[in-house]
């Protein structure tokens, strides 16, 4: 099972996990990213490069499928305006054994958080909105995977 969706709307984590659990593997790992409402943040605006995003996420999912013995992968990434508490991203992986599921889940979210063609603009309750800078830390983490 391979599922990649780049979409503005929210998603149903339980439905994604149920599909992964039904694949006959022994383990399902997941990560859900959520907008934090710190420092007066009232909204996060995610812009992306539509022609590129789907193709790139597809490719990194294929990399994960080549690298670990996975029964299923599901990646959902939202774009548009998201408020604190909203889900941004979901990665779910299913495998016969836990290590493959956990490692591939970490690999995919590290890639999404550092290399995926998204840009974030933060809107605050006071003051001008600002574009988030790329974080060196994320790039280093992705390099740890040989990305």
């Amino acid at each position: 099972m391979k599922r990649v969706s780049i979409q503005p709307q929210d998603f149903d984590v339980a439905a994604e996990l149920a599909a992964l659990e039904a694949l006959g593997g022994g383990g399902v790992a997941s990560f859900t990213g959520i907008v934090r409402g710190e420092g007066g943040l009232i909204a996060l605006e995610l812009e992306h490069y539509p022609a590129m995003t789907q193709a790139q996420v597809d490719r990194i999912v294929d990399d994960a499928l080549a690298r670990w013995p996975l029964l299923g992968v599901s990646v959902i990434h939202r774009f548009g305006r998201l408020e604190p508490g909203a889900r941004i991203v979901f990665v779910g992986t299913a495998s016969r054994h836990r290590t493959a599921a956990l490692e591939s889940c970490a690999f995919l979210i590290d890639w999404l958080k550092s290399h995926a063609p998204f840009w974030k603009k933060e809107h605050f309750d006071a003051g001008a909105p600002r574009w988030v800078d790329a974080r060196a830390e994320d790039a280093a983490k992705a390099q740890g995977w040989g990305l």
Partner: protein
Amino acid sequence: MLNIVYFAWVREGVGRDGEQVERPAPDATVADLVAMLAARGGGYAQVLGDPVKLRAAIDQRFVPLDTVIGAAGEVALFPPVTGG
């Protein structure tokens, strides 16, 4: 003609999300294109004047700025991606 697309503060700075320009010389790189656009002044100069802050893609693939554009259909200019 060559399609250019802009994202994030590059898009905001140039005031549009894309445009078509005359195809540059066959050996022109992305950096050459950026310099040509920055020479227009105004918002273009502001966001494209310091190429170190820019990243690019040719036909939806990340490339270094010294990549030759050649026969590509679309060049994208944007800040470093910040991920999801």
